[in-house]
């Protein structure tokens, strides 16, 4: 057991609405775990609580053996070692692709300019965007922007990457290029926690699926088990529905 991320009894409420009712799980090194569940089930909130972009009300989170939720935790340093990919990319609009990837290296890791550039170019190559390094976000398609956003996270050499519905804002044609990058990462041994309903990606790359509903984890297990033989009735119903919508298309996507 080599846990990168340990989550213990996470709670979060917005006013009277309890969005997380005690989430606990462990993410082991090199594994890709998908979080699925109907909208409003707390998936994105959970992800944001993990690096305290949202402050959880209760519960603890460890990155390896460092407690992120500790009062004296060096949050900026910890966040730098957790890649975070947003649904709507959130590339810095006034910076080129290269500078988007560089800025964390320069400002957070205090890397000299030359070295940061080399490093950033490597990350851009990894996502197939090196030839677009001088482009600004507004000059790029959504898929290209998302790949650069992934490179921005990768360049920091994170211990794990969190993905918050990375393909939800993309046209079906552009989804494939982003998933292909994520496939590569999974194969390359990156530890990933992905909120997504991409069934094809789940089948290909996920070691485990966490199914959330009503602010709780309902069921978790390997994709074969959840897709073929879920224990919970709710999991079966939900997966049937997204199979009907996304299943056939997802299978056609390139591996």
């Amino acid at each position: 057991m080599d846990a990168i991320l340990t989550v213990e009894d996470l709670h979060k409420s917005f006013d009277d609405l309890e969005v997380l009712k005690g989430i606990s799980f462990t993410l082991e090194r090199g594994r890709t775990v998908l979080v699925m569940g109907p909208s409003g089930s707390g998936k994105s909130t959970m992800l944001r609580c993990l690096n305290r972009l949202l402050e959880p009300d209760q519960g603890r989170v460890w990155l390896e053996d460092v407690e992120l939720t500790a009062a004296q935790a060096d949050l900026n340093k910890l966040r730098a070692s957790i890649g975070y990919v947003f649904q709507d990319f959130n590339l810095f609009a006034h910076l080129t692709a290269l500078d988007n990837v560089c800025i964390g290296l320069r400002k957070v890791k205090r890397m000299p300019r030359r070295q940061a550039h080399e490093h950033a170019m490597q990350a851009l190559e990894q996502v197939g965007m090196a030839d677009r390094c001088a482009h600004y976000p507004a000059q790029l398609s959504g898929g290209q922007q998302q790949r650069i956003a992934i490179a921005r996270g990768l360049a920091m050499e994170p211990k794990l990457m969190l993905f918050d519905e990375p393909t939800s804002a993309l046209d079906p044609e552009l989804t494939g290029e982003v998933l292909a990058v994520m496939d590569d990462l999974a194969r390359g041994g990156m530890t990933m926690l992905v909120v997504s309903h991409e069934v094809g990606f789940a089948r290909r790359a996920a070691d485990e699926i966490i199914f959330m509903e009503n602010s709780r984890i309902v069921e978790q297990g390997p994709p074969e088990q959840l897709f073929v033989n879920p224990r919970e009735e709710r999991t079966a119903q939900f997966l049937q529905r997204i199979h009907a919508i996304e299943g056939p298309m997802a299978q056609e996507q390139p591996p």
Partner: protein
Amino acid sequence: MIIIQATPTFLQYTLINLAVFAVLLPIGFAIGTLVALGQVYGHPVIAALATAWAWFFRGVPALVLLFLFYYGPPVFNINIEPFTAAALAMGFRSSGYQSQIFRGAIESVPAGQMVAGRAIGMSRLQTVWSIVLPQAFRLALPAWTNEFSAVLKDTTLVYAIGINEVMRFARTIYVARPELAILTFLFVALIFWVLTVIGTGLLQRLERRLALPGLEGRMRGPRAVAK
């Protein structure tokens, strides 16, 4: 004829206006930026103080501010030069207006930009400085150009506290030759019109230069998207 002969002198006195302008504008810019940041990101107490500052300096007439800054300090036995009083009064006043230009611009930068900065480990201050402000200043530039041209002309008000600027010089002409009054005013108008055209022209060029590729000329026809 007299006006033409006096042109160099007119321009010389206009330099005093430009000197006041050159000091008040950066004061307004610096304080305006801080007030805007205080309003948007500050602790509630700081935000309230920043808001009060902006309200006060936008709420008081320019001439009243000039008199307050010029005649106020001597009451407390503090000596103040007319130029200093003018630059501070007009600078603080402009900071009130500039702060609201910048506040609007900062609030127009999508929240995701701040979140993304924090997510890669940048501090709040780093993210504001390197991510939010560069975008906000771009957004603010058209409105700021307005403020620029307004305070440029407001520098003529400082003659009221005895600064020997161009309006005071104009006064010496029309007091001596009342029939030249209209011509004199028109000539001052011409000077400021030319200065405004040059200034706003330069700022528009700056705006175009800072425009982000892919987003430039959003108001000017279809945009080119490189694939």
